[in-house]
């Protein structure tokens, strides 16, 4: 009899224990850090990383040149919506217009002044997703000794496999006014010798190391 009377209390105690256990588990699951992917470090391959620039000459043709051998790293989880972070630099000495004379002029004090400002750098500070593997990346561009915030349109062009491992590619587009960076020769004095607006297309490729899948 005593047992029979005690049965409902035992059931109730079991239910309470199970409920507490479930609640603890749920709470524990909620409190546990959600697992995210660690970003891979993509070290740029200088042979396949270049920046093309375009400027108008004498209000006529659009002249193209390039900065060869870009260096730096990109950190990215490889997730289509997660934005990468960029830390890239270019040496002014690597300017290549296809003409030795023009290359020398570009490095002179009237343009990039390579003796005083030998590198151009870009460090990203944030990004917004614009589509699948497509971001508007904000960052600080240091050019000709002046650092200014810019917004760069970046697309991850692909993830492939090379002999050394995973290869990742990006293409970034940017238009800037060189006068904002103190490079004024040829805009007004002498008038309209060269345009103020410079279009940049930056092609990056690098080897991904590390990182974990989510």
């Amino acid at each position, binding site marked *: 009899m005593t047992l029979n009377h005690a049965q409902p209390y035992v059931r109730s105690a079991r239910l309470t224990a199970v409920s507490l256990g479930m609640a603890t588990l749920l709470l524990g699951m909620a409190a546990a850090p959600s697992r995210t992917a660690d970003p891979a470090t993509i070290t740029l391959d200088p042979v396949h990383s270049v920046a093309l620039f375009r400027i108008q000459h004498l209000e006529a043709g659009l002249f193209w040149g390039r900065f060869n051998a870009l260096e730096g790293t990109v950190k990215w989880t490889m997730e289509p919506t997660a934005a990468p972070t960029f830390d890239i630099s270019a040496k002014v000495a690597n300017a290549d217009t296809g003409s030795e004379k023009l290359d020398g002029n570009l490095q002179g004090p009237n343009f990039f*002044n390579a003796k*005083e400002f030998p590198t151009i750098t870009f460090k990203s500070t944030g990004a917004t997703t614009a589509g699948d593997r497509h971001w508007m990346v904000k960052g600080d561009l240091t050019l000709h000794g002046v650092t200014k915030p810019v917004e760069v349109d970046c697309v991850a062009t692909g993830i492939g496999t090379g002999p050394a491992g995973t290869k990742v590619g990006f293409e970034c587009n940017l238009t800037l006014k060189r006068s904002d960076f103190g490079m004024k020769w040829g805009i007004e004095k002498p008038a309209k010798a060269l345009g103020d607006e410079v279009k940049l297309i930056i092609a990056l490729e690098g080897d991904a190391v590390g990182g974990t899948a989510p």
Partner: protein
Amino acid sequence: MNYLLSVVLLPILVGSALAGAALLGPLRQRAAIIECCVAYGLAIAFLISFVHEVDLPALLRQLPVELKDDDAPFERWHQLGLVALLLTVVSPVLALLPAAMPRHRRALVIAATLLSACGAAAFVAFPGVSNGSRALFAATCALSSGAIAMCGLRTAMCALAVACAGMAACAVMTGFPSLAVMCVALAGTAGSIALVGCWSRSPRMHSVAGAISVVSGTLAGTAAACGAAYASGNVPSWTWNALAVGVPVAGALLYRWTRVAPMKHARMIDTN
């Protein structure tokens, strides 16, 4: 067209007008006035050219002045403008002080030559310039100034014009058009002063001492040092120093062409 007018022709006009007023005007017998106007004319011509070619904030950035809304970079080659500004300020003092103390004239001129050469070398810091290069820079300025002081005014101006034209050509070849136009402005001013000198009956055409030699030598030396520091490629850096030291060499070569006939000037009285 407006560009060349403001960067080259305006400085030449201002510089040669100042010098011409002294050489052809009623004060042409006063050595100190001629020294002052010619030296000031050369320095102001270079300064005007710099301000029009680069801009005024670039010059002000070299001074301890805060500029509002200015985020352009500090560039060391803009010290060229600062040297021209200092020479513009100092040249009247350099011209008038020896006249006020005629007994110490020679000592004052030598002191001014050495001080300006050493001052420019210590003060101007172009990138990648070693202490040895600075010593060479000081020696170049002092040599040019000293040798110009031995020439007649017309000879000195012709020599300065030739040397600056050479520097302008080097600047064009090495992709430094701003230095090229400033050198052309200085060469044009020196050349036009030499031409004005053809009509001047001033006995001071015989000698250059003090302000003119210091301004000419320091400007030529600084422009050469700037070219050697920045220019790359087609022109070896020693060419620039050779051109600055070449001011007195050109003076020696041009001396026969540009000297004033001694008989004509023997009749003139120096009323310094």
